[in-house]
C-alpha cells in the first residue's frame, strides 16, 4: 500500500518537483511550498498520513523504484517516471484517505474509542480497575466526561455503542479484513489487542502497510459519521472537534486577519517581523484555500490569462520556466495565479 501511495504521488508530481516534495506531503510539513503543492497537484488525501515517516524508509522505497526502472531521479532530486512506473501507477487502486481534513487526528479518535471500549468492557465484566490503554491524561479526562455525559452507570451504553458500531461498519465500503484490523487494535477485559507486527504477519504485509490500511479505514469511517451525524450520536461525539475546519496554517491565519483589517503586505511584514517571502507564502496559501480572497490587487486579469496560456503552451507548472517566458512578472505573482486556479 505504501508503495502504491508513493507511486500515485510521484505520478502527480511527475517532472515538476523533487522526490522530497512527496516526503513532505506524507509527513504533513506545514510549509508554504508543501501546502501549495497540495493544491496545485491535488494531493489532499495524502497530506500528513505518516507524520513519523523516516527518511530511511522513504529513501528505501525510492531506491527500489529506481532499481525497478519505475523512476529516474537526477542528482538535484528532480525526477521523472519511466513508462513502466507510469503503468504501475495506473494499476494502483483508488484510495480513500482524507489526510487534509484529519491530519493525524484519526489517532485521537481511536485513542478515545479504545479507552471507552476498554472501560465499558471491564464494566460489563464487573471488573472495577484496570490499567488504562491510553496514558495520555487529556484522553483520559475526555473519556471520563464522555462516559458521564452518556450515563454509563445505567449500563446501557454498551448496547448503544454496539448498535452504532455495527451499523457504521456494516455499511462501510471496505473489506472485512480492514474492519477486523480496526477491531483488533481495540482491547477489553481478557481480550488483548494484537500488535502491529502480529497483524501485519496475519495479513502478510509490512507493518507500515497495515498501519496505512488502518488509517484509511478510520478516515472513511470518520467521513461517514460526519456526513450523517444524526445517525451516530455516540460516534459523532467521539469524533468531535477532530475534523480540521480552518485549512490555513496558524501563521497564515494571522496574516489573513491583518490583511482583512486593511494593512498592506509591506506593513504586515514589518508588524510581524517576518521575511517578505514568508508573508508571500501566506498570501499564496490564502489564494489557494480562501475562496473569497481576490488576487486582483497583486495581479491583473490579463496577466493571469497570460500565465495560464504559457502553462498550457509549455505543459508545465514549473515556476522557473514560466518566469523565463513571462519575465516581466514576479515569482510571487506567478504563484498567486497558479494557486488561485484557472479563471
Amino acid at each position, binding site marked *: 500500500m505504501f508503495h502504491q501511495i508513493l507511486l500515485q504521488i510521484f505520478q502527480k508530481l511527475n517532472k515538476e518537483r523533487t522526490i522530497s516534495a512527496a516526503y513532505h506531503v506524507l509527513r504533513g510539513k506545514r510549509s508554504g511550498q508543501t501546502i501549495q503543492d497540495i493544491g496545485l497537484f491535488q494531493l489532499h488525501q495524502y497530506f500528513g498520513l505518516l507524520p513519523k515517516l523516516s527518511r530511511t524508509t522513504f529513501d528505501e522505497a525510492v531506491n527500489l523504484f529506481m532499481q525497478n526502472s519505475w523512476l529516474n531521479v537526477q542528482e538535484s532530486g528532480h525526477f521523472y517516471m519511466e513508462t513502466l512506473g507510469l503503468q504501475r501507477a495506473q494499476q494502483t487502486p483508488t484510495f480513500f484517505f482524507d489526510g487534509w481534513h484529519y491530519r493525524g487526528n484519526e489517532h485521537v479518535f481511536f485513542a478515545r474509542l479504545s479507552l471507552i*471500549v476498554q472501560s465499558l468492557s471491564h464494566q460489563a465484566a464487573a471488573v*472495577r480497575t484496570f490499567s488504562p490503554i491510553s496514558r495520555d491524561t487529556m484522553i483520559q479526562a475526555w473519556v471520563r466526561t464522555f462516559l458521564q455525559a452518556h450515563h454509563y452507570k445505567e449500563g446501557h451504553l454498551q448496547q448503544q455503542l454496539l448498535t452504532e*458500531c455495527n451499523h457504521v461498519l456494516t455499511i462501510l465500503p471496505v473489506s472485512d479484513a480492514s474492519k477486523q484490523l480496526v*477491531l483488533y487494535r481495540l482491547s477489553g477485559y481478557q481480550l488483548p489487542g494484537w*500488535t502491529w507486527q502480529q497483524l501485519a504477519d496475519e495479513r502478510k504485509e509490512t507493518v507500515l502497510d497495515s498501519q496505512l490500511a488502518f488509517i484509511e479505514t478510520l478516515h472513511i469511517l470518520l467521513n461517514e459519521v460526519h456526513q450523517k451525524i444524526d445517525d451516530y450520536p455516540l460516534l459523532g461525539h467521539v469524533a468531535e472537534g477532530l475534523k480540521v475546519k480552518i485549512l490555513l496554517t496558524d501563521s497564515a491565519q494571522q496574516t489573513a486577519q491583518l490583511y482583512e483589517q486593511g494593512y498592506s503586505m509591506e506593513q504586515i511584514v514589518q508588524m510581524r517581523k517576518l521575511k517578505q517571502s514568508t508573508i508571500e507564502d501566506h498570501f499564496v496559501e490564502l489564494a489557494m484555500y480562501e475562496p473569497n480572497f481576490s488576487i486582483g490587487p497583486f495581479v491583473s486579469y490579463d496577466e493571469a490569462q497570460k500565465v495560464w496560456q504559457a502553462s498550457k503552451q509549455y505543459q508545465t507548472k514549473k515556476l522557473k520556466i514560466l518566469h523565463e517566458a513571462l519575465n516581466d512578472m514576479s515569482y510571487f505573482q506567478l504563484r498567486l495565479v497558479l494557486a488561485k486556479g484557472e479563471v
Partner: protein
Amino acid sequence: MELEQLLHKHFGYSSFRPGQKEVIEALLQEQDVIALLPTGMGKSLCYQLPAYTLEKPVLIVSPLLSLMQDQVEELKRFGEKRVVALNSFLSLTEKRYVLHYLEQYRFIFTSPEMLLQQQVQEKLAQMKLGLIVVDEAHCISQWGFDFRPDYLRIGDWLSRENRPPILALSATATKKVVRDIRETLSLKAPFEFMYNVDRPNIHLGRVVVEDKADKARWLMHHVTETAGPGILYVSSRKRAQQYSEALLQEGVRVAAYHAGYGVEDRQFIQQQFIAGELDWIVATNAFGMGINKLDIRQVIHESMPANIANYMQEIGRAGRDGHSALAILLYAEGDEELAKFVVTGDLPTLHHVDRYQELLSQQIQPIQMLKNGELSETAFRVLDYWLQRESSEQVKVRLNHLALEKYNAVNEMLQIIQTKDCIREHLVGYFGQKLQKKPENCCENCGIHYDVIKKVCLKEKKKVEMATWESRLQQLLMGN
C-alpha cells in the same frame, strides 16, 4: 488499633509479609528505615499502612513516572481518594489546584524534578509531613546503575531540621549502595531490613557455548522443545526481533518486546502473555517493570547482564507462584567485552569534560552539547551536575572511577558465571547474606536434573485465531 487490625481494615489482608511489620513499627517510633524488598513483595505497604495512623500526609518521591501512576492507581483500587501525583503530567491549572490543597491529601507522590521547584519546596516547608518515602532509593547512589543527579539534589533538601522519618525503599542494593543511601539522605542510625535474596524454587543453570552460532542453535532447540511461560532476555532490539521471528517460524507462540514498540503494542504483549496466549517473550531489559505474572517457568539470558543486581531482578520474575522454575544463563567466551562496551556507552567521557569547559569559556551554554547530539541525556545530566560542583580534574577522576566500577560490576557477574563452586551461595553472599539450605537441583555446579524440571513442550498449543469483526465487537462490548 493493632497493626493487624489496620491491615485488615484498609487492605483486607490478614497477615503481614516478611519484613513489613518490623519496618512499620520502626517508622511509627520515628526511626529512619532502609528497607530492601523485591518488587511484588509488598514494598508499598510499608508506607501505605503508617499513613492511616499518622494523620499527616505521606510524601513519596519516585523517579519513574509510570511506576508512580501504577502506585496511585493501586491505592485508588483500595478505595483511597486522598491520593495525588504531583508530576509533570499535570497542566498548569491542575498543578496550582493540587498545590493549593496539598495538605489535604493523605498520599502525595512526586518526582525528584518536581521537588526541586521552588514553589513546591515552599509549600512543603509550610506543611507538617508524617513520613517521607524515597522509592527506588538505589538511584541516589553514584555507584548505582541508574544514577539520577536530581536525587542527589533532594539529599540537600531532605537534610533540613525537624524532618519526619525517612523510609528509603529499594528492590536491589548492594552494601556499597546502602552506605550511599544512608549518607546522601543523612539518615540517623536507620533500621535496616533486607529480604532473603535466595529464591530456592529457582534453579540456576548455566550453559557454556562456543560462539554466537552455537548459542543460536542451542536457544532454538531449547525454546522449541521445552515448556514456557518463559522470558528470553537478549542484548539488543535487533536481536529480540531476529529471535522472535525465527521462533515464530518454528511455531512457537512468541513475541518480541522492547522500548522501540509503541505503548499500546507493549501493553498488548504483556496482556497476551498474562492471558496465556503467548508462551515466550523475547525481550530487552525494558521488559519486566510492573509485570505481574506468577507462573513464569523459565528465564533465559542470551547475553550477560550488566551486573549481579540486574541478573537477580530478572531471574526473580520466574516462579513467583512458588513452584519450580529454571533460570539459564548462556555464556560464550568474550561475552564480557560486549557487556562492558554496553555499560559504559552511556557515560560521559574525558573529552566531554574538556568540551564542556571549552563552551563555557566561549560563553556558550554547555547544553548545546546535548542539542548537538554529542552525548546522551543521562550522560549530560551527570556531567552537568558534577561540573557545577567540582573542578575538571576532580570530575575526570570521578568519571574514570565510574567506568571502572561498571567494569567491576561486569567482572563480578563474570565470576558468578565462571565459578566452580555453588552459584547460589555466591549470589547470596554477594548481598551480604548466608545461604541457609541448598535446595535440590540447586545450580549448574551442584547439579541440575534438567529433564525433571523442563516439562516437555505441549506441541499442539493452538495459535489464537482471529474472530470476525462482528463477533470481536460483540465480545468487547457485551462480553460474549
